[in-house]
C-alpha cells in the first residue's frame, strides 16, 4: 500500500478502530454490570456453598464474559506491534474485514446519494438504485472472494476442492444474472406505477377527481404496464440478459452435476452420466430393432 492509498484508507481504518474500541468498552462495562444480576466475574464472592449452588447458572455467563474480555484485550493491543502474536490477530482481523468495510462504505455512499436526491425532490428510480446496489455487491464479491475461490488448489484433493470452489463461484454468478434479470423484469412495473401516479397528479391539478372508479384506474395501469412490457421484451437488452441468465444457469448446473457425481461415486447410486449412457444405448438398440422389424415385415410381404 503506497502512502497515498494509506492516507485514503485512514478515515475508514480510524472509524473501524474506534468502533472496535467502543464495542470493547461496551462489553467490558456490560460485563461489570452483570454481576449483581447474574453473579458476574467481578462481583464480590459469596460463601463457598452459595458459590457451589449457583455454579450451573453462573458458569456459562462467566465463561462468555471472559472470552469477550480476552478477545477485546487482544484487539486493544497496538496495531504497530509487529511480530507479536497477540498483536498479529487484530491486524489480521482488520485486513480480513477491510473488503467488507469498503463495500459497506460504498453501499452507504450510494444510499446517501439516493437520499440526497430524494431531499432534492428527485427520487432515485428503483431500477437505478437496485441495479447499482446489485452491481456493488457482486463486484465486491468478484474482487475479493471470487479471487480466493479461483486460487489454484494443491495436492491429492485438488480436483475435488476446485470443484467445490467452482460450484460456489458459478452459483454466485447465476444468482447475479438472475437478480439482474428479475430487476429488468420489474422495470415495466415501476414505470407503469410512476406513469399512473403522474397521471393522477395531472388530473388532480386540473381540479378533477382522480380515478374515482377503481376499474378505470386498474385498466389504465395494466394497459401502461402491458405497453412497457412489450417494449422491454422486444429489446436487445432483454434478449441479451435472458441469454446471460440461461448461460449462467447452464454453467452452474453443469458444475453442480459434476460436484454431485464426485459425492455419488462412493455411493452405490448411478450418476446422471451413467443413466444417460444407459438410455442412449437403449435408444440406439430400440431404433435398430424397429428398423429390423420393418425390414422383416417388408420381406414377408
Amino acid at each position, binding site marked *: 500500500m503506497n502512502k497515498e492509498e494509506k492516507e485514503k484508507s485512514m478515515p475508514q481504518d480510524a472509524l473501524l478502530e474506534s468502533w472496535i474500541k467502543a464495542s470493547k468498552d461496551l462489553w467490558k462495562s456490560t460485563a461489570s454490570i452483570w454481576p449483581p444480576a447474574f453473579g458476574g466475574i467481578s462481583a464480590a464472592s459469596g460463601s463457598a456453598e452459595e458459590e457451589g449452588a449457583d455454579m450451573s447458572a453462573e458458569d456459562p455467563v462467566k465463561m462468555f464474559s471472559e472470552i469477550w474480555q480476552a478477545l477485546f484485550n487482544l484487539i486493544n493491543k497496538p496495531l504497530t506491534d509487529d511480530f507479536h502474536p497477540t498483536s498479529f490477530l487484530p491486524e489480521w482481523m482488520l485486513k480480513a474485514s477491510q473488503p467488507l468495510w469498503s463495500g459497506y462504505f460504498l453501499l452507504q455512499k450510494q444510499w446517501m446519494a439516493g437520499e440526497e436526491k430524494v431531499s432534492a425532490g428527485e427520487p432515485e428510480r428503483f431500477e437505478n438504485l437496485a441495479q447499482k446496489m446489485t452491481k456493488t455487491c457482486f463486484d465486491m464479491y468478484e474482487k475479493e472472494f471470487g479471487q480466493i475461490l479461483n486460487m489454484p488448489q494443491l495436492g491429492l484433493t485438488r480436483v475435488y476442492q476446485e470443484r467445490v470452489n467452482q460450484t460456489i463461484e458459478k452459483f454466485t454468478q447465476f444468482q447475479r444474472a438472475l437478480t439482474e434479470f428479475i430487476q429488468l423484469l420489474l422495470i415495466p412495473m415501476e414505470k407503469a406505477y410512476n406513469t399512473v401516479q403522474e397521471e393522477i397528479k395531472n388530473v388532480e391539478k386540473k381540479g378533477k377527481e382522480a380515478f374515482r372508479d*377503481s376499474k378505470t384506474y*386498474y385498466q389504465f395501469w395494466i394497459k401502461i404496464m402491458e405497453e412497457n412490457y412489450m417494449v422491454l421484451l422486444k429489446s436487445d437488452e432483454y434478449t441479451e440478459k435472458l441469454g446471460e441468465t*440461461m448461460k449462467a444457469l447452464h454453467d452452474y448446473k453443469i458444475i453442480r452435476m459434476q460436484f454431485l457425481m464426485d459425492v455419488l461415486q462412493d455411493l452405490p447410486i448411478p450418476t446422471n452420466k451413467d443413466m444417460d449412457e444407459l438410455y442412449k444405448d437403449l435408444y440406439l438398440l430400440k*431404433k435398430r430393432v424397429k428398423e429390423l422389424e420393418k425390414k422383416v415385415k417388408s420381406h414377408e410381404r
Partner: protein
Amino acid sequence: MKDEKQVNLNDMMGPFKMAGDLIFAGLAGGDTAKLYNYLRDARNVLLSPMKTEIATTPYEVVYEEDRVKLKYYKPDTETRLKHPFLIVYAQVNRETMLDLQPGRSVVETFLRAGLDFYMIDWGYPTRKDRYLTLDDHINGYMDNIVDFILSKHNIPKLHLMGICQGGTFSVVYTALHPEKIKNLITTVTPTNFDTDASLLNIWARALNPDELVETYGNIPGDIMNLGFLLLNPARLMIDKYVSFLENVNNFDFVENFVRMERWIFDSPDLPAETFREFITNFYKKNLLIKNELEVGGKKVDLKKITIPVLNIYGKYDHLVPPAMCDQFIGKIGSRDKEDLCLDTGHIGIYVSSKTQREFGPKIIRWLMERDGNGRDRKTSEKVTVKKRAPKKVKQK
C-alpha cells in the same frame, strides 16, 4: 335512502393507493353489503363440487408405441368420410385442448357431423426419450401410425390434419410420404420462422439450444409455460387472475376458468434432441420454407406436396402469427390450396364460441368435398394392434 352501514370504500381511500386495494374496493362497487354478498357467493362457488374434467368424450386407444398412443373417436351415427382422418397435435401442451368442454369442443363438432377420426397423443416424455429426434417422431411414430391406420382400413391414403407444431410435423410428413396422404389441413401451423412478429421467434434466435439441452435434458414443460407467460406478463400473470377475482362468485365462469387452467399447465416436457433440432433448423435457420430441411437423411421438398391443402390461422395469434403461416401455400406444388385467416388467436381458434361456428364446419365441408371415392374403405378386423392390446378409455 342510503344505508348507514353502506360505507363507500372509495371515500376511505386517497388517490394514491395501491392497485390491489382499489381492485378489492371495486369488486363490490365500494359497498360493504355488496362486498359481503360477493364474498359469500365466492365462498359458495369455490366450495361447491365442480365438473372441471377435460377431454371427456369417450375414445378408444387403438395403437400404442412407447409413450405414444393413438386415440380413435367414433360417432354414434354412421361415418360419413370414406378416407380415415388423422389429427396430429403439437408436443407442446396436450391434444385435450380440442375437447375442452361440451359446447366448446372441436371433437364434439366433428363427431356430430358424422366424422370418425384418429388423434395422436404424444404422451409425457421421460428421461429415456431425450435422444428421440424429429426423424424418430415423423418417420418413426407418425409413419407407423399412418401405416397402422391404412392397413386397418385397407386403403392407400388418409386425410391428415396438423395443429401448431403438429402441423409442421404433418407438412414434413406429407412432403416425405406424399403417397399416403389424400388431403392436408394445417391449422395455426408455423412454416416460416424468419419473422419478428412473435416474441418467441426473437427469443428462440437468441437462445442457445445446446446449452438448454445440456442444462435440462428434456425441456421441462414448466419452463416452456414460463416462456409463454412472459409473452405478456401484465395480462397473463396479473389481469387474468384479477378477472378471475372479479368473477369468482360466478359458478360457470369459475368452472370454465379452472378447466382452461388445467389444460394450460398440463405441459409435457419436450424431448431434448427434438427441441434442439426444432430450434436450430426451424427457428434459427428457417430451413423448411427454404426447402433446405433434411429429416432422417431425406430432403423435405415442399414442391412435392401436390394434394389439396387447407391452411387455417388466426389473425391475432401471438404465438404463431400470420407471418409464420401465410407463406406456406405459395411454396407448395398443389393447385387446390386455400388460406383461411380467422379473426381470433392461437387457442381461440379451437375454443371460442364464435370460431366454433366457423372453424369446425369449414373443415368438415372442405373434407367432404374432397373425400372422393374411398375405394373400398372397410375396417380389417384381422389387423392386430402393435405392442399392446387396445383398451377403452372413457376419459383422461
